[in-house]
């Protein structure tokens, strides 16, 4: 009946936090303790950054080109530092491809935006009886709950918001922020901490009454979310959102050449969001999703890719990979690039590509996974997977779970007690974990 309690994070834990906050002094102690250990500890913490290409990116023009097919389109492949070729419009990424791999044998069957979004985030196809958690929520539940010094949410979604924590509960919901680094309504609005604590004590009295009124668990989960919100308001870790503290060269590298900055149809935004993701991961956040939209290219696909999407994508991926490597974090941070599906190999009458889930590519790297590889392949026209094995999102997330150290036999329980296997029972991709 009741929600499964996160391991190591009981309601008592939350209340403990609240009490600590109320007394103020222990909280200060706590913060200085965190600071002392932060630099070293945090960097070794595992994390995942999901680059979510909202709308469905044409992987045939990016990761798996078909120059000899009528489906190939305008772009040519180029060599990379890894053992695979990618699009000529991804030159900077080509220079870091020894760290990144491409799974070219995705075959995912959901070619509708809503269903694809759900399937790729959760590894489960939508059903009316249960809402499955996005993998970010799973990581929040598994890893975030164990990071006692993490005061900000363990699953942060920058510029997006298409996923749900499902049966894991709202405390594992993605915390939605925009790419500016301004977190709305997160300061005390002029009142002191003592006033806040007074308010929270009164709130506790009113809320407990409703929680004990035999009306189900919504009252308690409301309270749990407020505890998290209060933690966040009091936290110094909120500084992780302030990307403007970064040097200009870093900002420029992430968002492409300065001359193009801000001119790339939101591309500069993508780079800035990735930079924020790196800062959040450094602060101990185990899962960050960065949304980059504008891929629903039913028309004029090549022009849009060439001038808007790919320059920004290229700069962002290359800068993030390089930055993480320089900071010694790349072995602990998994990078995943995907959308709800990809786009038809066939080019339509509007020089666009439509929805396609049958044969496409997902990029994955870092976190100790093998880089520079192409896993699986598609046929010469890109219309089906030609290698012996094709992959589902569950296999991708199982690979990520492996890299993050989450046991693959982990089983969660849905609210009605049904066992739900991690990543829908997917298996880690052998070639990548070696």
């Amino acid at each position, binding site marked *: *009946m009741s929600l499964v309690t996160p391991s190591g994070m009981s309601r008592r834990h939350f209340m403990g936090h609240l009490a600590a906050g109320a007394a103020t002094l222990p909280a200060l102690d706590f913060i200085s303790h965190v600071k002392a250990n932060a630099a070293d500890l945090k960097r070794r913490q595992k994390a995942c950054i999901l680059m979510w290409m*909202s*709308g*469905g990116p044409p992987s045939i023009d990016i990761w798996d080109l078909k120059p000899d097919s009528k489906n190939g389109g305008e772009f040519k492949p180029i060599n990379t530092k890894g053992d695979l070729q990618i699009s000529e419009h991804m030159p900077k990424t080509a220079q870091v491809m020894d760290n990144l791999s491409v799974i070219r044998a995705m075959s995912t069957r959901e*070619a*509708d*935006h*809503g*269903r694809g*979004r759900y399937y790729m985030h959760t590894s489960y196809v939508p059903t*009316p*009886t*249960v809402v499955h958690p996005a993998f970010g929520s799973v990581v929040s539940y598994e890893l975030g709950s164990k990071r006692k010094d993490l005061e900000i*949410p363990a699953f942060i979604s920058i510029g997006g*918001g*298409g996923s*749900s924590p499902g049966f894991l509960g*709202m405390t594992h*919901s*993605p*915390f*939605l922020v925009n790419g500016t680094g301004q*977190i*709305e*309504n*997160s300061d*005390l*609005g002029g009142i002191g901490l003592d*006033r806040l604590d*007074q*308010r929270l*004590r*009164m*709130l506790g*009295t*009113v*809320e407990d*009454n*409703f929680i004990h*009124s*035999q*009306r*189900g668990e*919504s009252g308690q*989960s*409301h*309270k749990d*979310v*407020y505890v998290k*919100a209060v933690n*966040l*308001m009091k936290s110094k870790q909120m500084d992780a959102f302030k990307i403007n503290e970064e040097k200009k060269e870093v900002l420029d590298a992430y968002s492409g050449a300065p001359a193009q900055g801000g001119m790339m149809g939101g591309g500069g935004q993508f780079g800035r969001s990735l930079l924020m993701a790196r800062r959040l991961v450094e602060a101990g956040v185990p899962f960050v999703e960065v949304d980059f*939209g*504008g891929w*629903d290219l*039913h028309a004029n696909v090549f022009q849009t890719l060439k001038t808007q999407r790919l320059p920004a994508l290229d700069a962002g991926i290359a800068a993030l990979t390089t930055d993480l490597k320089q900071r010694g974090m790349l072995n602990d941070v998994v990078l995943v690039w995907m959308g709800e599906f990809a786009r038809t190999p066939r080019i339509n009458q509007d020089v666009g590509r439509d929805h396609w889930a049958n044969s496409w590519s997902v990029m994955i790297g870092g976190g100790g996974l093998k880089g520079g590889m192409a896993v699986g392949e598609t046929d010469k026209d890109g219309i089906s997977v030609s290698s012996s094995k094709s992959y589902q999102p569950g296999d991708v997330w199982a690979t990520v779970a492996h890299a993050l150290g989450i046991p693959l036999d982990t089983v969660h329980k*849905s*609210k*009605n007690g*049904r066992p739900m296997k991690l990543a829908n029972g997917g298996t880690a991709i052998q070639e990548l974990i070696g």
Partner: protein
Amino acid sequence: MSNVQQPPTELQILLDGLCEEQLTPDQLSRLEQLVLTSADARWQYLQYMDLHGTLYWDAAGAGSPEPLSSHEMPAYVAPADITPAGRPASKKLSRQRMPLVIGAMTACLAIMLFTVWQRPTPVNPQVVTVPDTPSKNMAGVASTEWVRSTIPRKHGPPISIDEPVVEPGAENFDEPLLVQQSETTDEPKPEISRAEPAASSPVRSETVIARIGEELQSRWKALGLQPSARADDSEWLRRVYLDIIGRVPTVDEAQAFLADKREQKRETLVDELLNNTGYARNFTTKWANLLIGRSSNPQVNREAFEKFLRVSFTGNRPWNQIVADLISAEGNNAENGATNFLIAHLNNDATPATAVCSKLFLGRQVHCNQCHNNPYDKTKQLAFWELNSFFQQTTSVYRQRRDPNTGRLLSGFTELVTQDAGGPTYFETQTGLMQVAYPRYNGNDVDASPETNRRVELARLMTTGEQPQLAAAFINRMWEHFFGIGFTRSVDDMGPHDPASHPELLASLSEQFMRSGYDMKQLIRWICLSEPYQLSSRFSDSNQNDDPSLGELPAFSRMYVKSMTAEQTYDSFLTATKAHQVGAIDWTHAERNRQQWLRQFVVAFHTDENDEKMAFDGSIGNALSLMNGPLISKALDTSAGSFLGEIVRQKSPDTEKIRLLCLATLSRTPSPSEFSSMKKMLREASVPRDGRLRVNEAYQDLFWALLNSNEFASVH
């Protein structure tokens, strides 16, 4: 009100008189006569009432210091002077003078609605080709348009239905005869008479309400469930206010209801709420969000669309007619608000329009069929494109007018246009074959030549006569609105893959709904007075497992707790705190503020399906907004004239102040233990510090806690 410039017509003079309560009984009956005999007059009457209604909400409505008494119709504001700038200046009628006006309005409205219900809904199963272009059509049909009585001709082409011309006066006599005949003959009753609305073969509300109770009881018995106890007045009151008018009751409204000793007070309140302007406003919000989404679209005129809905709901137009309008609307989107529905979904070869029509009106998801046959329920790709081809003549054009004097461009509008186009729609199967689809709905082929207005045909095929699927989809969605879950888990996608919890009840309610003439208010009465709606949300020992969130089919043996929507939260904040009265603003401004506040939660995905998400889901971001955002800081204002300020300054004991704050937020009196703990906290918080008494702050903090509480955020 487009004709402000012209000298006022007799009707306008009478309407003004009505609102200023200057009417003599003779004038009143003249007004009745005008309204009842002319469709245009009815439209103007509704427009007029709508204007007053919207002004009323802001100026005198939620949070009014005077009770919206539970014994009277809600008051409208009068008079409204339209100044040359177009800015309505309103003043509130004194309370003593209201009843007369209210009475007159109620009479008019009642007679009008009665007349509208009288109208048979025609059934015509054959394919009818409309011979003319819509514009030519209009002139010919308008005078006989009874079904569409509340729509002016300028609002697009009427659906061309072969409909008997009936003299208004004759109707009352015709229909009982018809029914008697069908009851006394052995012949199967023709479908048409069953679809006939009200009066003649009245749907007896008590029967329907009793049936709901019986159906559910038999299930409870079968499952061995004891239903929860009857909800007490506070619990029920707050629930019904939020469900019907989208906000919590004011302190005065709550006190009036709680003090009311009459046995029929729940029935009375439901009727009052249905006549409250908040009813139309609430369902306008709900349906606008469903029909055109929340993301802004420069082509869509949200204000005009909401006005179309508001006027329709205020006049209680039958649901099938509203749907018909949405599907067949034509013209300028500022003048004919209904056009905005399709304007919002014509992109990508109108595939969103196809999917949304099916989802919202029929409760069937078909967008997957755009690309392939559905493996689960046998629906075919071809069917999607057959439905889609009804929209293939339709396009939207952006137009700008020029000021004839200055030559300056005036603000533009979008026009929904039907082109003279015919022939099939082409689509590609998964194997890459090109196929054709012709307009075909539910087994009915429609002539595919350019002369046919396909949308008019679709509206006719989908909405006239008995439409069990249209009715069931609507019932299911309304049931979900009131109980938190429909008979099926997804109200958007009913079908064999998602069996209904109470199929017989759903079928029976659909049947009664059709018989009532798709009467929305009647349906809400049935639901709100039914046994399950009277139950408490507290579970008993026996029904703890009746919890749809566990994936079980609902048994409705208790009221499931719903979370307030973003709109309910906003409107309830304003009601509980009268924040909208701090620095009074006009309605347009108020609505703009509301939309602006709501926008922070909208996530648009910018895909070809126009999908979006409302991130008001109880997440940390929502909590932050309510703890620290502008809404709460306004609510905590204690300056003169503010709600909290007035309470704090009242010369009454603490217990009374606590009681009022709890009533304003939770619609109930605190329990003795809550009283004592709140008093204790207030005392502690008010202890002078730094030589300063902090009573105001203590009350602010208590009010903050109440407004941020789980109980406030719940509809239970």
